[in-house]
C-alpha cells in the first residue's frame, strides 16, 4: 500500500520552527504509490486487446501523479472497455450503456476534490450515448475521457458500430457495413466549448501514456480517442497500420506531444502542429490514413461548467436556515392580517 509517508515539514512529526499560516495550508504528507496500489484483479480481456494497454497506461499515470486512490474515480459505461474500473484499485462506477458521462458529471459537480476519469467504447460514446458526448464537450467539466474505439461491438459479439468503416463485414452487416464511419474527432472538434482533443493508437504505449498524461493535466473535458485492436472479432483490422509506420502521422509541437529519437526513428511521418489552431486541427482530424496521432486541439481558457456553477459559500446550517426562512417569508400570511412586504 502507501509505502512512505514523509512529513515535509519535519521528519520526526514535530515542528522544530514556528509555523506560519501559509505553511499549514500546504499538503503535509507526500504520498508515494507503486503500480500495485492501483491494480486490482486479473483483467478478463482477450490477449492482445487494446484495453490492456490503456489500463497499463492509466495505472502508470496514477502512480506517477501520485493520485490518492480514495480520491480517484474511474467511471465507465457498458462494453468490454467499460470493465476497466473493475481492475483499478480506486473508486469506480461501472454504470449504464452510454451513460458514463452524465454519471461522471454528477460526481464532478458534487465533488470537485475528486479526480474523474471516464472510459467508454465506441458504441457507448458514439451511438447510444452520443447525446451525452456532445453535451459533455459543451459542459467542459474537468475530467479525462477515453474513447476505446475498436470500430466494433465486442461484448455483444461483432456488430457494426458507428465507427466501423464502410464495407466492414459484421454480424449485422454480413455484406459489409452500409454507411461511412462517423469520425469522433471531427464531431468533437465541431462542438462549442471544445477544449482538448487527442488521438492515439494502442500499439504505441509511449505515446498512449504521454497523451493520457497531457489529457490529465488539461483543465477541462479532455477527450482522447484511442484507436485500438479487437483481436477476437477484427484480428487483422489494424494489421496494415501496425506493419507500416508511415501510415501513422505523428503530430508534435512544443505545446503538444514530444516525440523522442527512438519514436522518430520508427515513425518518420511527422508533422508539427500547434494545438491552439482549431482550423488546422479540424483538417488533420478529417484524415484517417495515415492515422494522425497526438494532440489535435488544446485550449486552457475554456470555462469549466463546475467552476461556473460551483457555489463556494460554505453551506452551513445557518445559511440554509436563513435562506429558507427568507423563502418562507415570501409566501407567508401573518396572523395580524398583513403581508410583511418589507421583509423581502
Amino acid at each position, binding site marked *: 500500500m502507501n509505502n512512505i509517508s514523509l512529513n515535509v515539514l519535519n521528519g520526526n512529526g514535530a515542528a522544530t520552527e514556528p509555523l506560519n499560516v501559509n505553511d499549514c495550508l500546504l499538503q503535509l504528507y507526500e504520498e508515494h504509490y507503486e503500480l500495485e496500489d492501483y491494480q486490482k484483479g486479473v483483467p478478463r480481456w482477450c490477449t492482445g486487446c487494446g484495453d490492456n494497454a490503456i489500463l497499463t497506461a492509466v495505472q502508470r499515470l496514477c502512480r506517477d501523479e501520485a493520485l490518492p*486512490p480514495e480520491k480517484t474515480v474511474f467511471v465507465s459505461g457498458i462494453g468490454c472497455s467499460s470493465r476497466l474500473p473493475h481492475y483499478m484499485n480506486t473508486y469506480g462506477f461501472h454504470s*449504464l450503456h452510454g451513460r458514463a458521462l*452524465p454519471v461522471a458529471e454528477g460526481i464532478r459537480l458534487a465533488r470537485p476534490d475528486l479526480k474523474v476519469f471516464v472510459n467508454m467504447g465506441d458504441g457507448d460514446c458514439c451511438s447510444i450515448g452520443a447525446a451525452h458526448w456532445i453535451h459533455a464537450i459543451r459542459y467542459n467539466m474537468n475530467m479525462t475521457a477515453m474513447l476505446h474505439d475498436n470500430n466494433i461491438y465486442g461484448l455483444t459479439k461483432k456488430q457494426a458500430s458507428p465507427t466501423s468503416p464502410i464495407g466492414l463485414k459484421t454480424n449485422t452487416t454480413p455484406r459489409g457495413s452500409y454507411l461511412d464511419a462517423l469520425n469522433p474527432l471531427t464531431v468533437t472538434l465541431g462542438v462549442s466549448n471544445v477544449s482538448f482533443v487527442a488521438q492515439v493508437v494502442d500499439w504505441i504505449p509511449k505515446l498512449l501514456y504521454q497523451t493520457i498524461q497531457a489529457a490529465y493535466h488539461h483543465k477541462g473535458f479532455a477527450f482522447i480517442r484511442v484507436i485500438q485492436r479487437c483481436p477476437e472479432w477484427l484480428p487483422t483490422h489494424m494489421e496494415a497500420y501496425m506493419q507500416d509506420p508511415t501510415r501513422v502521422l505523428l503530430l508534435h509541437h512544443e505545446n503538444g506531444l514530444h516525440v523522442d529519437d527512438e519514436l522518430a526513428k520508427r515513425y518518420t511521418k511527422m508533422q508539427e502542429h500547434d494545438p491552439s489552431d482549431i482550423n488546422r486541427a479540424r483538417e488533420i482530424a478529417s484524415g484517417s490514413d495515415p492515422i494522425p496521432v497526438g494532440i489535435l486541439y488544446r485550449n486552457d481558457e475554456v470555462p469549466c461548467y463546475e467552476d461556473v456553477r460551483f457555489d463556494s459559500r460554505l453551506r452551513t446550517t445557518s445559511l440554509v436556515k436563513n435562506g429558507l426562512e427568507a423563502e418562507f417569508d415570501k409566501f407567508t400570511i401573518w396572523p395580524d392580517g398583513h403581508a410583511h412586504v418589507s421583509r423581502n
Partner: protein
Amino acid sequence: MMEVEELTKVKKEKTNGHGVPATGMGPSAYMGKVTRLNEHLVEIISDSGEGAQKCGQSFGSIVAQMGLGVWTTEIIPAEIRPPARSVAGASGNRIRFGSKRVTNGGNETDLVIAFNEQVLLGRVRSKELKPGCTILLESMWRDDKRVAKSYTDAVEQLISAGYKVYEIPMDKECRKIVSDPRKGKNMFALGVLCGLYSLDLQSARDQVVLTFGKKAAKVIESNIALLDAGYAWADANLDFKYEIPAEKSTEPQIVVNGNTALALGVLASGMEICAMYPITPATSASHYLSDAFEEVGGIVHQAEDEIAACCFAIGASYAGKCTVTITSGPGYSLKQEAIGLAVMGEIPLVVVNVMRGGPSTGQPTKTEQGDLMTTIFGSHGDAPKVVIAPATIEDCFYSMITARKIAETFNMVVVILTDANLASSQQPFKRPVFDEGWLAPPIDQSAIPPGAKPYDWDPKTGLARRFIPGQPGGMHTLTGLAHDENSHVAYDPEINQRSMRARSLKLATLQKTLNPPPIFGDPTGDMLVIGWGSTKGAIEEAVELLRQEGKKVSSLHLTFIQPLPPGIKEILAGFKKCITIENNWSDSPNDEMIDGSNRRYSALAILLRSRYLVDIDCWSECRGTPLKPNTVRRVIEEAMA
C-alpha cells in the same frame, strides 16, 4: 350545503378587518344587498397571456390573507398561445374559498369572470360551471363588428339557459388608466372580485405590491389604480355583493402550490443539487428552485435529456450528495433504466414524478394518477424502491424531507408521486418551523476499517453501510452487474439470490417503522373508501357529507404505497365493502364486454387485492380534472346501494 343569509348592509365606516383604505378611495359607497355565504367557487378565465392566472393567484392570496380557507386550481390550455378567443383556449384560475379550511378544488363554479365569450363557452361545454351561475363578461366584443354577432348570440344563449349574465366594460374602464388594457385588465377584474366579495381593499393593494414587487414603481402604481377602479366599479354598478365570514388563523401560514412546496422541501431537506429536464407539469418546481438556490446555495442542473438528468443525479448521490431529479410521466419512463442502476448499486436517490395524463404524450397539463404501477414495478427485473404519494400541498413539503432521509438511511430510491392537481393548486398550510434534523449530515470521509465490505448486507434487515468516494480504504467499483459483498461482479447463483434478498428486505425493514394509517370516520361500517395522493380532500369531503346523513362510511388515505404500512388488513376487516376511488383507468363492470374474468382494476385496487386477498372494488375516471366531491359522493352512494 351552502348556508345563505341575506343582509342589508348599512353604509359602513370600515370595509372589512382593517379596511380604511390608505390612499385614494373613501369608504365603500355600496348600499345594495349583501349575501352571506359559507363558501364560494370563483373562476377567472381569459385568453392565454391576458393575466387571468395572475389575477386568480392574487385573489387566492388575498382571501387567504383575510383568513379564509382557500384552494386554487389553475386552468391551463395545452398551448402557450392558443388562438385568441378560442373555445379550447381558456386560461385562468378557479378559486374555492370559504369560512372553513378548504381541502380540494370543489364542484362546479358559482361565479365566473370571463374576458371573452368563447373561453366561457368552453367552460360551459366542459360542464365546469354550475347551471344558472353568475357570469361577469367583458362587453367590448359587442362593439367589434367582426365578432359582435357571435358575442350577442352567446349572451342570449347563456341567459336563456338560465345563467345570470352581467356585462362589464372592462376594456373601456381600463383605457381610462392604461393605454393597453390587455396588460392590466386582470387587475381591474381583481378589483371587481374584491369588491364583490367585500374584501379589504388595502390587503388587495398589498398583494399587488407583492405580485409586482420587482417591477418599476410606475407599474405598481398603475396596477393599484386598476384594482381600485375595478373595486369602485363593482360598488357603483352591481346590485349584489357577498360576504364570507373569516376565521383567522392564529399561526403564520404559507401559501404556495405543490410544486413550490416540493422545491421548498428540497431546500429544507438539505439537498443541494437538482438535476432535471424541462417537462410539464413538473418544471415550475425547478424554476422556483433555480431562483431559491441562488440564496440558499445549490444548483439546478438542466441536463441534455431525462436520462442524463437521472444519471447526473445518481453520480452526485454516489459521490455523497443525495440528489433529486424532478420529472413527469414521459420523463419517468425514460429514467427507468437509470433508476434500476440506483436500486442495484444501492445509491440514495430522490425522484419526483408529477403525474400528468398518459400514456405517451397524453394530456401534459391535465392531472391523472396513472403512474402508480410503473413507479412501483418499473425498471426491469426486481427493483424495489420506496413510493410516497403526498396528499396535500403541505405533504409535498414534508415528503421531500422524509424522502431524503429514507433514501440515505436505506440506500434506496425514493419516488415521490404528485400530480398536476397538486402541482398547480394552492392551499395555505402552517408555516414550518425549521429543524436542523431536516438537513443532510456532512459527507462521511472517515477511513474504512480494514476488512469492511461495501455491501456487507445485514442478514436480518438487508442494510449495508455505504462507502463514499474519498473514504480511505473504501475503494471499490460500484456496478449495475450482479455483485457480491465486495462489489465484485458475480454470476454465482447463491450470491445473486442473496443480493436480491438484501435489496428486497430493506422495504420490509422500512415497513416495520411505519404506523398504521389513520381512518377518517369510524373504524367499522358498511363502506370503506380508499384513496391515495391528491384525491384526499375530495374523498374526505364527500365521506363527511355522507356521514352527516347517517351513512356508515369511512375512508382511508394511503401516503406510503411502497411499502404499504402495517394494519391495513385489520382496517379492511372492519367494513362490509371496500372500494378504491382513483383518478386513473379501470374498466367499468357495466360495459358489455367486461366481466369478472377480464375487468381491469385501477392501480391501488390491484395492489390491495393482491396483497390482502380482499375483494376490493374500484371506481376511477380519467377526465384530466381533479375529482369533484359531488362525483365521489355519487360513486359512494351507488356503490352502497
